[in-house]
C-alpha cells in the first residue's frame, strides 16, 4: 500500500541504476540510520548496546568481508577468524608504536595488513578450486592461529599473551579502554560500519563487483571474456580480508576491550561467520546484517530470554540447544531458501509492491 513506485519516474540512467531506486527505500534506510544513530544511543540500556548491538555490528562487518570472497566471488574461505586476528594484532602493534595517531585511523589501516596477508593466502586460489581451496584457507587459519600464540612480538611480549587495549580518545572522549562507555564505543563502531558498507556497496555495484560475480558464475567463461583471473581473485581476497581485519580490530578494541586471540579468532569463529553469510544470503550485503542479527540474537535469547519467561536453562544446556538450533536453522534455510534471508526480504518487497494483487 505504502510501498509503491507508481509515479516515480526515472529520467536518467544513474537514477535507474541507483542502489535505492525507490523513494520509500531511501526513507526506510534513513529511518534505520536515524534509529541506529540517535534512538538506540539515547534509549538503549548499556546492556542492550554492549550485548546486542556491538556484537551485531562487528559480526555484520566480518560477514560482509566473508561474503565478498565467498558470496560474490565464489571462493570458499574458512580463514575468516584468522584474518580478523591479523587485523586485531596489526591495530595493536600500530597503536603501540604510534600512540598519538587516532585509534580510528589505525583500526581502518589495520585492514591493509590483513588484506596483504589475505592476498598472500589467496594465491593458491588460481590453481585450486572449490573444496580444495577451502582446505587451503584452513592452512591460513591454523598457521596464523599458531603465530598469534607463538610469536610474542605480536602481543608485545606481555606475560598473558593477550591483547591489552590501551585507552585512546577522540576529541577528548575515551573510545577504547576501560573508561569508554558502551554508547561511545557503539557510535564509533556504527560510523565505521556505515562507512565500510557504503564503500562496499559502491565497489560491488561497479566494475570490480561485476568482475567478482563473473568469476563466481564461471571462472573459465570470465577468463574468456577478458577478465584476468589472478588479479580478480586476489582483489577479492584482499578486499575480503580488509573487511575482516577491520572487523577483528573493532572486535578487540571496541567490543572485547582486550583478550586472548586464540579464543576470539579460532576456527569456530570462522565457521560462525560462514553460517551468518549462508543464513543471511550469499552474495548480498543486506544479508550480512540479517545473518549477523539472527545468529547473534538467538544465543542471547536462549541465554537471557528463556529464564525471563520462567524457563530456566543451565548455561551448558543453553549452549547445547544453541548448537542444535543453529544447525537445524542452517539445514532448514538451505532446504527452504538456499539464497538465505536476503532472498526472503526481496520476495517480501516484491509482494508489497504488487499488493493486494499477486502479480
Amino acid at each position: 500500500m505504502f510501498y509503491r513506485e507508481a509515479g516515480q519516474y526515472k529520467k536518467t540512467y544513474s537514477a535507474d541504476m541507483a542502489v535505492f531506486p525507490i523513494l520509500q527505500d531511501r526513507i526506510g534506510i534513513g529511518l534505520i540510520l536515524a534509529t541506529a544513530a540517535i534512538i538506540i544511543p539515547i534509549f538503549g540500556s548499556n546492556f542492550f548496546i554492549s550485548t546486542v548491538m556491538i556484537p551485531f555490528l562487528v559480526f555484520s562487518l566480518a560477514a560482509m568481508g566473508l561474503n565478498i570472497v565467498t558470496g560474490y566471488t565464489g571462493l570458499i574461505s574458512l580463514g575468516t577468524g584468522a584474518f580478523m586476528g591479523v587485523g586485531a594484532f596489526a591495530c595493536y602493534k600500530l597503536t603501540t608504536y604510534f600512540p598519538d595517531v587516532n585509534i580510528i585511523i589505525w583500526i581502518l589501516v589495520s585492514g591493509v595488513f590483513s588484506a596483504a596477508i589475505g592476498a598472500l593466502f589467496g594465491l593458491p586460489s588460481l590453481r585450486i578450486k572449490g573444496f580444495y581451496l577451502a582446505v587451503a584457507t584452513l592452512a591460513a587459519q591454523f598457521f596464523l592461529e599458531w603465530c598469534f600464540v607463538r610469536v610474542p612480538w605480536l602481543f608485545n611480549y606481555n606475560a598473558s599473551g593477550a591483547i591489552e587495549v590501551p585507552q585512546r580518545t577522540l576529541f577528548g572522549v575515551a573510545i577504547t579502554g576501560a573508561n569508554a562507555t558502551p554508547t561511545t564505543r557503539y557510535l564509533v563502531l556504527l560510523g565505521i560500519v556505515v562507512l565500510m558498507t557504503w564503500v562496499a556497496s559502491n565497489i560491488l555495484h561497479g566494475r570490480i563487483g561485476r568482475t567478482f560475480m563473473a568469476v563466481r558464475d564461471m571462472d573459465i567463461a570470465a577468463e574468456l571474456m577478458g577478465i584476468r583471473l589472478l588479479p580478480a581473485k586476489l582483489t577479492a581476497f584482499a578486499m575480503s580480508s580488509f573487511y575482516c581485519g577491520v572487523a577483528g580490530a573493532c572486535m578487540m578494541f571496541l567490543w572485547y576491550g582486550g583478550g586472548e586471540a586464540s579464543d576470539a579468532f579460532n576456527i569456530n569463529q570462522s565457521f560462525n561467520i560462514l553460517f551468518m553469510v549462508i543464513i543471511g544470503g550469499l552474495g548480498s550485503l543486506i544479508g550480512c546484517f540479517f545473518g549477523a542479527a539472527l545468529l547473534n540474537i538467538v544465543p542471547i535469547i536462549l541465554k537471557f530470554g528463556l529464564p525471563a519467561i520462567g524457563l530456566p536453562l543451565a548455561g551448558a544446556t543453553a549452549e547445547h540447544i544453541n548448537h542444535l538450533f543453529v544447525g537445524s536453522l542452517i539445514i532448514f534455510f538451505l532446504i527452504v531458501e538456499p539464497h538465505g534471508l536476503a532472498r526472503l526480504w526481496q520476495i517480501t518487497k516484491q509482494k508489497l509492491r504488487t499488493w493486494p494483487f499477486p502479480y
Partner: protein
Amino acid sequence: MDLLFKIFIDPFLQMGAMPDLLVQTLWEGLVSGVLYALIALGFVLIFKASGVFNFAQGIMVVFAGLTLVGLHEKGVPAWLAVLLTLGVMLALAVAVERVVLRPLVNQPDIILFMATFGLTYVLIGIGEFIFGGEPKQMITEELGLPRGAIDVAMLGGRVTFQKIDIAAAVIASIMIAALAVFFQYTRIGRALRAVADSHKAALSVGISLNQIWAIVWFAAGIVALITGIMWGARSDVSFALQTIALKALPVLILGGFTSIPGAIVGGLIIGIGEKLAEFYWGPLVGGGIENWIAYVIALGFLMVRPQGLFGDKIIERI
C-alpha cells in the same frame, strides 16, 4: 649458514644418530596416519557415491564413540552397545538421506557442503544434550581390545609399541580390505560404483539413488564408529576430536576426493610427515607446528597436482 645447517642437515644427523627414536617417531606417525586415513575414508565413501563433501564425518566419529560409551554407562553390555550404536548410525544415515539430502537434490555442491555443516552442529547439539559435553573414557577392556605396551629392543635402543595402536592398524587394514571386497564383489558394491560413475546412468538402469545414499552414509557411519573406538582408546572421547578430524581434510586433498587408496596413502604421508616435522623441525620455531604442517604439506602437493595424488583429472568445460 647456521640456520640452513639446522634446517637441512642437523635433523638428518639426529635421525642417523638415534635410529630407535626415528623408528618410534615413524611408528607414532604411522598410527595417527592410519586414524586420519580412516576418517578420510568416510569422506571418500560419501563423496564418491553422492558428490557430497561430508563435513560432518569428523563429528560422526565423535558421535558414534559417545553413543557407544554413553550406552555402556547406562548399563548396557558392551556387545549390545556396539549393536545399538550401529542401529543409531543406521537411523542417522536414513534420517540424513530423508531430511537433508533428498530435498537438496540438484542443488550446487556448495549448498550440500553447507548442509553438512549444519548437520555437524545438530550432531554436536544432540550429542552434548544427551551425553553431556565432558570427555569420556573409551570402554577398551569391555570391547576386548588389548592394553599396555610392548618394548622391543632394536637398533641400539628400545622402541615402545602400544598394543592398542597395533590393534588399530590391524583392524583398519581388515576394514579396508573388507570395504574393497564389498565394493568389488557384491551387488550393492557394484551399484555404489555405478552411482559414483554417473548418477543418471545408474538411475536409468534401475538403481535407487536414495537407497544407495542411505547405504553409503551407513557405511561411513560404521567407519566412523570404528574410528571413534580406536581414537577414543588413544585419548578420550570428546568433542575436541572434532578439530583433529579436520586433519582428514589435508589427507583428502593429498589423496584426491574420489580415491580410497589415495585416502590411505595420504593419511600415512600426513601422519608420518607431521610427526617427523614436529619432532625434528618443530623445536626450531618453538614447537606446536603439528597443528598446521599437515595443511602446508597438502598445499604443496596441490600446487603441483590440483586434483590430488590419485584423484581423477579435473576437466573443465564452458
